[in-house]
């Protein structure tokens, strides 16, 4: 189907089913039950799953295939958000032009930054991208937000005000981002017995886009271009002496992943029309790195899983507080109950970042292939330690550092 082989078609269908039925899948618990706190079928959370999924898929095209570790991809996401909000401010709340512009502007940015950064490789590349991202953050946070020239609105963040021109806006259209009149905020709620499911227009727009870009990612992975990118990661020396110019390949990968980031940023603004500099900070770049690694860098489905995993647990962990903990451990004797709560307490609520950091270390130390590799290991165990031949083009985790020519 669509030029994919059977395995990839299945993968695409699985993703399609998961995203389309996410409102059901993520709300397995009745609304009033104690377990409802584990539900994740809220429109804004589901949107975040998808948006970060797109971000991570794009990042993985660069990092997973070529091995170039960018620590500055959040900058492209931020640029995308700003571009989209400017479209909202000047022209229209319709999301199509906004998202289009996000992608275009992010492409231009990543072309410039990539052109410079890719002149170096390895750790130098990482630090160059980091420097560019921090510079973009500083630019957005303060430099480009002075009375003479206010592009980003600094600390407050860029948002749409009542006196903005919005030349193509008509009164009949919703006063929020919309798709030809369909407000991104509109949600249809379905009550089935004790359960409640939300179907949100914005979410479904994101979901459709995710499917498209996931499909494109599969095509890239299976293309000669994708193979060249893996070859770059494996041995640049051999690339050069085989008559291949690595620079345009890596730059193309960089720009593609930058466009994915811009798309994610644009969608973020389309779901909630504001853009802030904090989206560009290097910790945000670190987060997408973690998503790709946790899921499995270089695999197709990994980054999506990683993004979902992190955003889900971020949401759940942040909500849990001591009262909840006490109710969990209430079956234990009092002293032990308090002790357990005391132990777990630092990791929940505001301590989510601690958990995230630990997770980061544990994954890198014990599971360099991420969740996908973990899943494969479990599957292998279940099959009874039968040796499975390496699946073609599914995982590429080199155990040795890549050779890079001058």
């Amino acid at each position, binding site marked *: 189907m669509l*030029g*994919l*082989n059977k395995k990839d078609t299945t993968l695409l269908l699985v993703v399609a089913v998961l995203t389309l039925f996410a409102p059901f899948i993520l709300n397995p618990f009745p609304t009033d039950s104690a377990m409802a706190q584990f539900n994740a079928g809220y429109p804004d959370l589901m949107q975040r799953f998808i948006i970060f999924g797109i971000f991570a898929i794009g990042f993985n095209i660069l990092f997973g295939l070529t091995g170039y570790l960018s620590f500055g991809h959040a900058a492209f996401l931020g640029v995308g958000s700003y571009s989209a909000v400017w479209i909202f401010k000047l022209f229209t709340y319709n999301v199509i032009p906004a998202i289009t512009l996000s992608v275009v502007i992010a492409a231009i940015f990543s072309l410039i930054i990539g052109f410079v950064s890719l002149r170096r490789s390895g750790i130098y590349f990482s630090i160059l991208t980091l420097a560019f991202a921090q510079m973009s953050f500083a630019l957005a946070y303060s430099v480009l937000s002075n009375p003479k020239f206010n592009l980003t609105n600094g600390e407050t963040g860029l948002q749409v005000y009542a006196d903005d021109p919005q030349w193509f806006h008509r009164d009949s259209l919703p006063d929020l981002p919309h798709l030809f009149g369909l407000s991104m905020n509109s949600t249809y709620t379905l009550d089935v017995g004790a359960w409640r499911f939300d179907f949100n227009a914005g979410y479904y727009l994101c979901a459709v886009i995710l499917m498209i870009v996931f499909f*494109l990612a599969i*095509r*890239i992975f*299976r*293309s*000669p*271009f*994708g*193979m*060249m990118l*893996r*070859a770059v*990661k*494996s*041995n640049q*020396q*051999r*690339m*050069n*002496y*085989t*008559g*291949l*110019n690595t620079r*345009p*390949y890596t730059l*193309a990968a960089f720009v*593609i992943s930058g466009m994915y980031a811009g798309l994610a940023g644009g969608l973020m603004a389309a779901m909630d029309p504001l853009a802030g500099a904090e989206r560009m900070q290097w910790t945000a770049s670190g987060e997408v790195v973690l998503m790709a690694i946790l899921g499995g860098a270089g695999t197709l489905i990994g980054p999506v899983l990683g993004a979902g995993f992190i955003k889900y647990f971020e949401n759940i962990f942040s909500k849990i507080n001591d009262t909840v903990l006490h109710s969990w451990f209430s079956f234990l004797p009092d002293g032990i109950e308090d002790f357990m709560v005391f132990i777990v307490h630092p990791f929940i609520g505001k301590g989510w970042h601690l958990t995230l950091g630990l997770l980061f270390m544990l994954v890198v130390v014990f599971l360099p292939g991420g969740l996908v590799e973990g899943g494969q290991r479990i599957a292998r165990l279940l099959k009874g330690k039968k040796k499975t*031949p*390496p699946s*073609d083009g599914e995982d*590429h*985790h*080199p*155990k*040795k550092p890549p*050779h890079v*020519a001058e």
Partner: protein
Amino acid sequence: MGILEVKNVNKNFGGLKALSDVNLSVRENSVHAIIGPNGAGKSTLLNCLVGKLIPDTGSVMFDGQSVLGRKPYEINQMGISRVFQTPEIFGDLTVLENMMIPIFARRDGAFRMHAYESVARERGILEQAEHVLEDMKMADKRHMHAASMSRGDKRRLEIGMCLSQEPRLLLLDEPTAGMARADTNNTIDLLKQIKEERDITIAIIEHDMHVVFSLADRITVLAQGTPLVEDDPQNIKGNPKVREAYLGESA
């Protein structure tokens, strides 16, 4: 007029003279060996041919065109392929993929944005790659990760990758260095077979005299960055200057 003409090439590193007035002419469809003791400048010379180093003075012409100032990938596109001392292959890719990449490079040039096409549909390329693998007697290993093969097989794969580009000049940098006797003999046989079956020029840098004298049509002896003599193998063996500079000390 040879296919490769090196004229008056000089190369200094700091104060050290690595190459001085090197002249070399490699005839088309011959096997030309470059030998010499350690530090004679063999690798420097090779690097000057493939674009890794640029000589301070002199000229390097391949088929009437200068290679100086061109990047390694451009020189490869001109028809020069290089085999490294330690096999340089794409370790994370399968053997078949390894073999497809040079064929893509020959068909599509140094860069092509073929991101939407599918590798699996590139019938022509796949067939060629399979064909070369069979020639190299590696067809059964096509789905192995290249890094997991033996050194001899990696060498074989690397030579296959270079040959799949149908280069006009194949450069070999000590192709049997660090190999067991059996692997060395296999490699010699492979190279002999290539020499017989194809219209190809081979330039080989080698330490192992056994390899040199089983393959070479012509030999250049380098010593201290200067060519000592260039002659046919039987004459080289008897040449007293060579004995003194090279064979004498290893005999």
